[in-house]
C-alpha cells in the first residue's frame, strides 16, 4: 500500500436544523449555494486544490443527495486508482451497531479506513462552511512548529468574540487555553473547526476516549490532548470564511456574491471551485427580461425581471415576474406576473402565476421563531405554490400546497405550511 502523507476526513452527516425546511430532506452540506454549487463543494475543492487526493466523507443524515452529488468524485478529479473520495456511512458491527454519535465518534468508527492509508497527518474538516483555504500551507505550519495538533482560527471582531469558541495563544501561536463563548473574551481568535492531527496522536486519543458518549472534537478530543501535554498550535487564517448555519447567514453569504467585486471571488483562475452539474447549456435572457446585479446558473430561462438575486441552474422565471433579493435554486419554475421579495426558494419548486411572496409586515414565526426570521420567505424543495396566493414574511412552506391551504388566498406573516409525508 502506498502511504499517504495527509488524508482528509470531511464531516458531512449533520442536518443543519437551523436551515429549517431547506434541510428537511437533504443534509446541510448538500444544500445549493451560489447559483451552481453545493456547500460541500468548497471544502472538497479546497482539498483537491491543496493537493490532498484522499478524502473520506462521513455521511449520516439524509445522504441520498450527497451520495449522488459526490458519485465517484469525477468533478473534483477524486476518481483515483489509489485514494480518491470514499463515502463513509455508519455501518453494522458484530458487537454493536450505532449511529455516529459525535464528530470524533464518527472518525473513531472509521479507524480502519484511515489506517489503510497509514497517513502521517489527518485533516478534519466540516462540510458546512464557505471558504477557500490552502491546507498545504496549514500543514507546513504544523510541521514547522513540530505540533501534535493544529487548529485553524480566525480573528473575529472583539465585540462578537463572546459568541465563539476562542483559543488563547502565546507569542509563538502555541495554544495555552480554550474559552467557549466567554462573557469577557481574552482573545479574538475563533476556532474554525478545521484541525490537523498527527495520526498517532489522534488515534491514541480516539481509542482512549472511545467510551465517551457523543465524543466530540471540541468538547472531548482537543481538551484530552491538551491535558496530556500535547503541542497544540493555532494557525491564523485571514481570508473569507462563512458559517452558513442560519437562514439569515445563508442568505447574506449568497447576496455577497453579487457585489461588483465580491469579497469571496468565484472568478479566480487558480483556485477553482468544482461541482457536479448536469446542466451545461447557456442561459437565455429574453427580449423583455431585465437582469441586474445578479448571478444566474446554466440553462436558466429568464423572461421576467431579476434584481439582486442568485438564480440556480435550469430555473424558469416567467413574464412580468419580478424577483428581488432572493435565492432561487436549481430547476425551480416560476410562473408569470409573480412578485418575489427576499425569499429562499429551494430546488425543483413550482410557483404558479400571480403569486406574491414576501408581502406585508414581518411577524414572529409561530412554528420556530429562531429559525424563520430575518424577514425571509423560505420554501422547501419539491414544493408547489398555487397561482394567485400571497405569502407574508417570516414564513415557511414545504410540500405540495393547494389554494385551500391559504385562507382567503393569504399565508400571513409568521405562519407556516409544512406538509410532511409521502404524497401519492
Amino acid at each position, binding site marked *: 500500500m502506498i502511504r499517504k502523507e495527509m488524508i482528509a476526513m470531511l464531516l458531512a452527516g449533520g442536518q443543519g436544523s437551523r436551515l429549517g425546511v431547506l434541510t428537511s430532506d437533504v443534509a446541510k452540506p448538500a444544500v445549493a449555494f451560489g447559483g451552481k454549487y453545493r456547500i460541500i463543494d468548497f471544502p472538497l475543492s479546497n482539498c483537491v486544490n491543496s493537493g490532498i487526493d484522499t478524502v473520506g466523507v462521513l455521511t449520516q443524515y439524509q445522504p441520498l443527495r450527497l451520495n449522488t452529488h459526490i458519485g465517484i468524485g469525477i468533478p473534483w478529479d477524486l476518481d483515483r486508482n489509489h485514494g480518491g473520495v470514499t463515502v463513509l456511512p455508519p455501518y453494522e458491527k458484530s458487537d454493536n451497531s450505532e449511529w455516529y454519535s459525535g464528530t470524533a465518534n464518527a472518525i473513531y468508527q472509521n479507524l480502519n479506513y484511515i489506517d489503510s492509508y497509514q497517513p502521517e497527518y489527518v485533516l478534519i474538516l466540516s462540510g458546512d462552511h464557505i471558504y477557500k483555504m490552502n491546507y498545504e500551507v496549514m500543514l507546513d505550519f504544523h510541521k514547522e512548529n513540530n505540533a501534535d495538533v493544529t487548529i485553524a482560527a480566525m480573528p473575529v471582531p472583539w465585540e462578537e468574540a463572546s459568541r465563539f469558541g476562542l483559543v488563547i495563544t502565546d507569542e509563538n501561536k502555541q495554544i495555552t487555553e480554550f474559552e467557549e463563548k466567554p462573557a469577557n473574551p481574552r482573545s479574538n481568535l475563533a476556532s474554525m473547526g478545521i484541525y490537523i492531527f498527527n495520526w498517532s496522536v489522534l488515534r491514541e486519543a480516539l481509542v482512549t476516549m472511545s467510551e465517551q458518549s457523543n465524543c466530540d472534537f471540541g468538547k472531548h478530543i482537543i481538551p484530552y490532548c491538551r491535558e496530556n501535554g500535547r503541542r497544540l498550535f493555532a494557525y491564523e487564517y485571514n481570508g473569507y470564511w462563512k458559517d452558513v448555519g442560519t437562514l439569515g447567514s445563508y442568505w447574506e453569504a449568497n447576496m455577497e456574491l453579487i457585489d461588483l467585486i465580491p469579497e469571496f471571488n468565484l472568478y479566480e483562475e487558480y483556485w477553482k471551485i468544482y461541482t457536479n452539474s448536469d446542466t451545461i447549456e447557456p442561459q437565455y435572457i429574453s427580449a423583455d427580461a431585465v437582469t441586474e446585479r445578479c448571478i*444566474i446558473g446554466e440553462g436558466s430561462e429568464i423572461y421576467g425581471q431579476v434584481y439582486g438575486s442568485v438564480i440556480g441552474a435550469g430555473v424558469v422565471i416567467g413574464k412580468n415576474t419580478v424577483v428581488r433579493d432572493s435565492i432561487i435554486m436549481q430547476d425551480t419554475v416560476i410562473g408569470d406576473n409573480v412578485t418575489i421579495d427576499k425569499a429562499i426558494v429551494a430546488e425543483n419548486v413550482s410557483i404558479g402565476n400571480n403569486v406574491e411572496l414576501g408581502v406585508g409586515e414581518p411577524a414572529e414565526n409561530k412554528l420556530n421563531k429562531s429559525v424563520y426570521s430575518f424577514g425571509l420567505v423560505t420554501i422547501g424543495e419539491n414544493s408547489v405554490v398555487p397561482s394567485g396566493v400571497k405569502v407574508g414574511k417570516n414564513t415557511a412552506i414545504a410540500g405540495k400546497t393547494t389554494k385551500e391551504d391559504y385562507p382567503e388566498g393569504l399565508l400571513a406573516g409568521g405562519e407556516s405550511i409544512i406538509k410532511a409525508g409521502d404524497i401519492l
Partner: protein
Amino acid sequence: MKALGIILAGGNNSRMQELSNKRAIAAMPVGGSYRCIDFALSNMSNSHIQRVAVLTQYNARSLNEHLSSSKWWDFGRKQGGLYVFNPTVTSDNAWWYRGTADAMLRNIDFLKRSHEPYVIIASGDCVYKMDYNKVLEFHIEKKADITIVCKDMPMEEDVSRFGVVRMNEDSRIVEFEEKPMIAQSNTISAGIYVIRRRQLIEMLERSAEENRYDFVNDILIRYKNMKRIYGYKIEEYWNNISTVESYYQTNMDFLKPEVRKYFRDEPKIYSKVDDLPPAKYNVGSDVRNSLVSSGCIINSKVENSVLFKKVFVGKNCVIKNSIILNDVYIGDNTHIENCIVESRDTLRANTFFSGGDGIKVVFEHNERYVI
C-alpha cells in the same frame, strides 16, 4: 449495439475564413457551451455505440485537447471506448490522409479487429440529434448496402456545397452529385452513413488498389448503380457549420426556443465540463434575447447575441447580432455589430467593429493584462 462508430473530423474548409486558422471545424464552439463534435459523439453515446474512432488531421490540437478524456461522453470504458486516430508515418506509408476513404483505410486494423457487424460513419461538423439505431433498422429493412442520411433543405438555400441526391419512391438513391454547379434537387447528404463492416473493408481495399481516396466520390458515387444505396431522411434539426454564414446561422438558431428545447431535452448533448462560475450581471447590464454561458461577467448592453464561456463585457458597450467565442475580453465603450469574435481575443476599449450587411470575423492579437 450492432455497430461501431467512425467520426470524420479531419477536414478544413476555406469558407470558414480565419475561424479555421485556430482549429479543425469539428472543434468549433457551438451553441454557447458545446464543441461541434459533441453532437456526433453524444449521438453515438446515446445510441449505445460502445466503440468510436475519431479521425483527425487538420489542426487537431484544440480537438485533441477537447477529447483528452473520454469520460464526458461516457466512453471511459473497458469494453470499447473512444479512439483518436491522427495520421502517422508507417513503414509502408509516409502520406497524410489523402481523403476520407484513405483515412479509414489507414486505420483498417481498427475495422478488422472489431466484431460489430455494422459501421456508422458520421462527420464532425454537423449539429443534430439522432438515434443511429433507427437508421440501422431502416438499413436492414431495405436490405441496403449503404444507407445515407439525407436532409431536405429549404428551396431557397444554396446547396452547391453539399452532396445532392435524388431518391426514387422506395428511397433508393438514383442520383448523387457532389458539390454540383446546378443542383437537381434540394435533398442533400447529411454526411452520415451506415454500411456493413465487411462491405466497408472490401470497398476501402479495392479503392486503395485503384489509388482512389475519397469516400464520397470514389465509393458512394462510383458504386451508386452497382450497390443498393438508400436514403434515410432526417426530419428534425440538422445543420452543417462549415461556412462562416452557416456557422453564424446555426449559433443564432439556438436563440429560438424550439431549437433550445430540442437540444436540451433527453437524450442530452454532452461536453467537456469547464468548472466556471455562474454568469454575473452587474449594474448597467442590459441583456436582451441573448444566450449567456457560464463564467461571463456583463456590465452593459447585449442584444440578439450568443456569448460563449467566460466573456467579459466592459461598461457602455453595445453588442448586437454577434457571436462572441470563449474567453473574450471586451473593453469599455466598444461597439460590436454583426460580428463573430474569435476566442481568447482582447478587444481594446473605445473600438468599433461592424460586419455591415454581412458577418465580420474579428481576430485581434492584443495583449491582455491580467492583474
